[in-house]
């Protein structure tokens, strides 16, 4: 009982120990913030890239792609672990938006009716999904519960059936070009294009409000120019294809490299424009096949191995000899370069900050040594009334533990507050000091991760408590060994 009494008295009365408490608090908060941001960054990376890709990917190593993908898909979809597979073309192009913006973009041609079964791309669409959900959840809008339910139902349906369909009436498009030449494709029959939010300059202003988004986007005629690549891999700069599109939606994946310079168009149109469609002696080509697996399939490597066999078999059967055949990878392998670098950076930063936190152990050691020296006479008194040496040691170790618990808890609260409000704080720092630490171009996401992982928080606070105890051990042992007579005589 005396140990508990003295620990609580010392914790409240010995102000010098509050310095230790503050040190533990700040170190805990610092590690928590670093771990949450860096760990969150890694999680966002993994989650986002996994969400924009199939679980297994067949990828051409050149822009000219590979043939007989339809036979490959037919066989791949027969595998018991595969749910669906779809082709995708990735290339580069030049975009002209209403003669107001010209930019180089990454162009992805996809079979949009299948993409919702492959990955989470449909969830990135504003008009067909995010906007409907935001409207349903917006309490400021004057909508009935039935209307909100209807919006959510519409969004859910669009997830399974996203499309490039034009959202406005035909007349809205045709009226943009009243003097078009006869024989040309009517504007209302142009295809739809989905553009990354950054391509359309959709962004948040200083107050966090989204700007440059509205129905006017869907009235912007857009011209996409791509360069054809032959099946031998040759490039003819004069053999380009231009096609007109209407913007039908914007995509916000939160992955900067996709949102800032990627556009999505129908697979068959892009294939045709790139001369990759089937012609007389040449089968149709694609640059990628994305494969989604059935729920519960965990061994991606095993599926990868089977798909690789199928790809090799099809090419061999069709007599296709490729200098560099397509590569079959899991999504993690395809992003290994990015993920590996980020994992190393997270480990390095966390290790460095943890090493800095070791300083707090030494600070606690010094402060406790001072406290034991100050309390020498008290130790003599406590022993004179019957406390054992072990009991005296427990007082100071318990004191260290109490500082760890109190400091860790305060650090947890402080760290959580910082992480939770980190984007606001970052914005304020930018406004006041002109400093932008989080650059989306470097870190690939436009917001700083702001979620504390509970498991990590428990571990960090646990380490804070252990560190405080470690700092207190030697002073506690010293206190325990004090001769009570010498302690009572201590001045």
């Amino acid at each position, binding site marked *: *009982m*005396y140990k*508990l*009494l*003295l620990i609580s*008295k*010392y914790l409240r*009365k010995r102000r010098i120990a509050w310095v230790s408490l503050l040190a533990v608090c700040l170190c805990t908060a610092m590690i928590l913030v670093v771990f949450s941001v860096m760990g969150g960054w890694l999680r966002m990376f993994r989650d986002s890239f996994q969400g924009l890709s199939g679980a297994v990917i067949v990828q051409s190593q050149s822009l000219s792609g590979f043939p007989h993908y339809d036979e490959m898909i037919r066989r791949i979809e027969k595998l018991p672990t595969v749910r669906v597979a779809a082709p995708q073309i990735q290339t580069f192009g030049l975009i002209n938006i209403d003669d107001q913006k010209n930019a180089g973009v990454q162009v992805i041609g996809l079979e949009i009716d299948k993409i919702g079964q492959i990955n989470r791309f449909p969830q990135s669409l504003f008009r067909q999904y995010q906007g409907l959900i935001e409207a349903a959840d917006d309490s400021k809008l004057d909508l009935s519960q039935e209307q909100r339910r209807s919006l959510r139902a519409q969004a859910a349906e669009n997830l399974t059936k996203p499309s490039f369909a034009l959202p406005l009436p035909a007349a809205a498009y045709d009226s943009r070009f009243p003097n078009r030449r006869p024989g040309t494709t009517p504007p209302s029959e142009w295809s739809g294009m989905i553009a990354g939010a950054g391509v359309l300059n959709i962004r948040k202003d200083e107050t966090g409000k989204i700007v440059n988004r509205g129905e006017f986007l869907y009235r912007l005629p857009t011209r996409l120019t791509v360069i054809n690549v032959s099946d031998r891999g040759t490039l003819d700069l004069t053999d380009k294809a231009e096609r007109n599109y209407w913007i039908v939606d914007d995509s916000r994946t939160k992955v900067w490299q996709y949102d800032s310079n990627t556009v999505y168009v129908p697979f068959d149109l892009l294939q045709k424009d790139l001369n990759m469609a089937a012609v007389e002696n040449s089968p149709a080509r694609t640059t990628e096949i994305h494969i989604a697996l059935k729920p519960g399939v965990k061994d991606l490597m095993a599926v990868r191995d089977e798909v690789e066999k199928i790809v090799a078999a099809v090419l061999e059967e069709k007599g296709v000899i490729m200098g560099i055949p397509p590569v079959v990878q899991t999504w993690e392998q395809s992003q290994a370069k990015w993920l590996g670098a980020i994992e190393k950076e997270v480990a390095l930063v966390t290790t460095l900050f943890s090493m800095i936190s070791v300083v707090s152990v030494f600070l606690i050691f010094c402060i406790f040594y001072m406290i034991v020296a100050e309390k020498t*006479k*008290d130790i*003599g*008194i*406590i*022993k*004179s*009334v*019957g*406390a*054992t*040496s*072990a*009991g005296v040691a427990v007082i100071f170790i318990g004191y260290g533990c109490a500082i760890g618990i109190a400091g860790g808890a305060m650090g947890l609260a402080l760290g959580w507050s910082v992480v939770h409000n980190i984007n606001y704080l970052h914005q304020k720092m930018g406004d006041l000091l002109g400093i932008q630490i989080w650059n989306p171009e470097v870190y690939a996401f436009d917001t700083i991760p702001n979620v504390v992982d509970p498991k990590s928080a428990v571990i960090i606070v646990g380490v804070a408590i252990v560190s405080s105890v470690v700092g207190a051990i030697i002073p506690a042992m010293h206190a325990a060994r004090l*001769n*009570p*007579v010498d302690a*009572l005589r201590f001045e």
Partner: protein
Amino acid sequence: MHLISAESINKSFKMGDAVVTVLKDCDFAVKAGEFVAIEGRSGSGKSTLLHLLGCLDRPDAGSIRYDNKDIAALGDKERSAYRNNDFGFVFQFYHLLPELSVLENTLLGAFVKHSVGEWLRVRHPQREKAKALLEQFGLSHRLKHRPGQLSGGERQRVAIARALINGPKVLFADEPTGNLDTETGLQIMAVLNKLHTQGQTLVMVTHDRSLAKQADRTLLLRDGKLVSP
């Protein structure tokens, strides 16, 4: 039958390069209920003998018998238990814990004796016992005060109450009036004498002959040994 006895006690201290022997083949014994005063000049080893008898220190040689055991040879845990349950100490400079109140200082021995679980069961009777002791010493109006708010005499009375909380068989007093004025010293001696009349065994160390004369028996510590004056 002696309650506590010491035989051929030797104790030396290192003072720089020199070794100073304060007790040399020293014998001592006290019966239950007896009041013994140990007199001697400053530095004669009186306090050292008290500390050895009360398990605060160990002799270099010799034995100290209490409860049919040589308590000098016991381990830290057993010796601590004797200090807690069987012996009480009153020091010249009171030695109260500054962060604790008068009541908490008085209960210190009880806090050491009981675990947290035990304390939850015994706290009320223990608090009543402490309050009764403090009332006996005229301190019932000072329960929440800190030692820094008390006079010298009041602090010494709190120290005596603390020493008595677990009902010790032997009370060791090391110059209990050494830091007090004459009048206050007399008050403290009155308290100790009253305890003695109630049957408390008392071993007191003093350099003041007039105080030593109040004991049943006085011994003089000279050349490391106890002799009759």
